């Protein structure tokens, strides 16, 4: 009896053991990190939601070429831009089919009405769908689309003209973002007529490569390949998101063959993954930057010499080694090196405490001063351990006489207080949305962003003029030039200590072919196949 009792769990376990890698070759399992907030990408901010909605289900007028930040036409075949940069005319692709769902069967192909509906829902209070699902279109508003777009005109069934209030070069890149996904107006009309408009956000159909067939919150999402997809059916037949929040468990599942692709591995597991013969560890520099912003409105950070001194006083390589455990690279500019217009000729401030002391003395702080470093309470790709980063900086600065106290708050509170200008210096960062330098420089360092995400509250006229000029022209050579000049001013004025650009790792099973890491952080499975 005693023996029987002890052996019971193991006996049941062995009896019920099943082959864990039994899934068919045409099913790809992606162990995602969490549940999506919903399936309408225009209502939300998180990458988890975009991976589950806009990437598999929808298309946009323009899209990012897979594995790059280059924008290419998608549902639009081509685009004409007027000389004054105020009119964008999109020529739409013909013969593009919408998916179907349990209660909706499309009767027509994609056309201009779908484009106009998808944007007007976010733009116009008068649109019957505007208030549905909370009525908050954060990304659309944050990218300035609500004030930028003056009108959207249907020229004919396959031609749509966007009229802008002012020229805005990043507009095209914005249209490739997730919030600009194209919905079916026919489906929206059907639900509105039935009095159930909220269903559009729960079971939307798109023109994308996969259609959603089942969602179980916190468990899984199932998709099947859309056989009428306009680029041709995906190579895999079924796509499953197996929702697995813990990174160690995702790795265990990958090893056991229960998933094929996993995002966000633990930095500590990277070495073991590299050595695993069944795993192909892919990596790419992330489109992000982690930095420390000096609040220039607070003493003594209004003095450029103090800011430069602390740049010299910080041993960034030590931070990369300790905080990123190799999964990061030292940053010197406010934009990451993979982005166009990155100024390679800028020479970073080397670690030089003696030089730092000299500069502090020149600024009148020979005996140093006391300040605070704000450390984020959350993990981010651009800063996996802000507390540790702050501690290293604290030690480095102490060597030049600057006594820094570390401060932290709950995340929402942290952001709120930071925007109110409370910190002396703050650790924060940014991950790019659309591959345009404007999305880093204007958002984080322009005069317009003071009181928003310009945490250093630094506003430099010459620098800002360059950013505005680059925004207003579509000439790529000129834009490139403006941004490079801006980075020189930024380096000299040193409103930040740019600390790191992280390296993104994605382990996949060896059987998975054709997978590419998206520099913008998304996960795409259209071109992926699985070998038996």
């Amino acid at each position, binding site marked *: 009896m*005693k023996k029987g009792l002890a052996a019971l769990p193991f006996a049941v376990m062995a009896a019920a053991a*099943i082959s864990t890698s039994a899934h068919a070759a045409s099913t790809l399992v992606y162990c995602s990190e969490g549940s999506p907030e919903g399936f309408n990408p225009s209502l939300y901010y998180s990458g988890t939601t975009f991976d589950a909605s806009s990437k598999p289900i929808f298309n946009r007028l323009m899209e990012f070429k897979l594995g790059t930040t280059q924008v290419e036409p998608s549902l639009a075949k081509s685009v004409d831009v007027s000389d004054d940069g105020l009119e964008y005319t999109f020529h739409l692709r013909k013969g593009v089919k919408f998916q179907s769902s349990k209660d909706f069967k499309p009767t027509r192909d994609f056309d201009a009405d779908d484009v106009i509906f998808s944007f007007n829902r976010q733009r116009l209070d008068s649109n019957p769908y505007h208030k549905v699902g909370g009525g908050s279109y954060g990304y659309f508003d944050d990218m300035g689309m609500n004030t930028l777009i003056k009108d959207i005109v249907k020229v004919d069934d396959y031609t749509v003209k966007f009229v802008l209030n002012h020229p805005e070069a990043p507009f095209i890149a914005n249209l490739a973002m997730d919030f600009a996904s194209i919905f079916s107006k026919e489906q929206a009309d059907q639900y509105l007529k039935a009095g159930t408009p909220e269903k559009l956000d729960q079971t939307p159909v798109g023109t994308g490569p996969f259609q959603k067939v089942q969602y179980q919150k*916190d468990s899984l999402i199932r998709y099947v390949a859309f056989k009428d997809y306009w680029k041709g059916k995906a190579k895999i037949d079924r796509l499953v998101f197996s929702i697995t929040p813990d990174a160690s*468990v995702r790795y*265990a599942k990958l090893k*056991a063959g229960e998933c094929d692709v996993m995002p966000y591995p633990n930095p500590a597991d990277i070495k073991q993954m590299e050595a695993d013969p069944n795993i192909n560890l892919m990596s790419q520099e992330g489109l992000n930057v982690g930095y420390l912003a000096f609040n220039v409105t607070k003493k003594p950070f209004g003095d450029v010499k103090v800011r430069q001194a602390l740049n010299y006083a910080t041993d960034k390589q030590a931070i990369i080694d300790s905080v990123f455990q190799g999964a990061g690279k030292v940053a010197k500019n406010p934009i990451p090196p993979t982005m166009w217009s990155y100024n390679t000729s800028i020479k970073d401030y080397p670690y030089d405490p003696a030089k730092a002391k000299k500069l502090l003395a020149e600024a009148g702080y020979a005996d140093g001063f006391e300040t605070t470093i704000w450390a984020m309470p959350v993990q981010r790709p651009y800063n996996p351990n802000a507390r540790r980063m702050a501690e290293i900086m604290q030690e480095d600065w102490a060597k030049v006489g600057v006594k820094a106290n570390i401060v932290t708050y709950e995340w929402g*509170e942290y952001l709120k207080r930071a925007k109110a200008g409370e910190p002396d210096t703050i650790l*924060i960062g940014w991950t790019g949305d659309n591959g345009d330098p404007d999305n880093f420089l204007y958002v984080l360092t322009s005069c317009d962003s003071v009181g*928003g995400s310009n945490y250093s509250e630094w506003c430099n006229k010459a620098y800002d003029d360059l950013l505005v000029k680059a925004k207003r022209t579509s000439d790529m050579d000129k834009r490139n030039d403006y941004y490079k000049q801006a980075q020189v001013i930024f380096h000299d004025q040193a409103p930040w200590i740019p600390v790191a650009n992280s390296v993104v790792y994605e382990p996949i099973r060896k059987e998975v072919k054709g997978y590419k890491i998206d520099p913008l952080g998304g996960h795409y499975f259209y071109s992926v196949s699985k070998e038996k």
Partner: protein
Amino acid sequence: MFQFIFRRLSLVIPTFIGITLLTFTLIHMIPGDPIEVMAGERGVSPERHAELSAQLGLDKPLYEQYFHYVAGIVQGDLGESLVTHEPVMNEFMTLFPATVELAVCAAIFAILIGLPAGIFAAVKRGTIFDHSVMTFSLTGYSMPIFWWALLLMLVFSVTLGWTPVSGRIDVVYWIDNTTGFMLIDSWLSGEEGAFKSAVSHLILPSIVLGTIPMAVIARMTRSSMLEVLSEDYIRTARAKGIAPWRVIVIHALRNALIPVITVIGLQVGTLLSGAILTETVFAWPGIGKWLIESISRRDYPVVQGGILIVATIIIVVNLLVDIAYGVVNPRIRHNR
């Protein structure tokens, strides 16, 4: 008996009012702003913040928000999640069957192992078996769940390949969500191997979640049995020549069960309120993880509604335990 149940029920209303007040006050006392959390590094302008606050009803004074919340509860409406805009009740109902399924299996595991182990340890007091049971139960009780789960997973799932790593069923099975209970749904689906897969997915989480209750039950059963076994009537029964198993099961166990039922009741209540760590490690879609995430997102309606439902469950389970006492021991029923 009915009077006894009625007396118990009358205590429920003030308890509920207390719970609503407490959860509402606590969640609003923690610093943090759901709108800021949603926007992240990007941030929102003050105008937009005000607009969103108005939309979500967060701009109203706290007492007004509280009364709105209570008025909703009275009408059976727990509100909508600030994040997903789904009714709280819908989200709860989607996740609760998974929690119940796991809790029941963990409880079965804990009782099946814990109860006999406790009885035998008491009967064989002072032997190696007794000491081993006590050592194992103390270890089980003090085991860090997260570590225990990962250890079992590495041994049985990754190294031996006996059980799946996590989830509720293998992804090859496309099971319709009929009842929400995967064991039942997979059985109903008729797909070959689906039920077996669902069972195999339950084994490790049930063992992990059932370990602490098992240890508690084993220890409680042992000490309670020891007390009863030293009673005079047991000696009398033995002296009368009644079969030893009969003395233990019929005479001793029934009397020793009262404190054990209390413990089982409390444990089941805890199991049903969701097991955050076990759910996180095994990617089990239950309510524990849902509540924790909603706290970090400051999703007020979910925290308030979710905790209220969980509290209701615990109250109901405790009530059932009280009634079970009465059934096992008529003296309790009459004395009250």
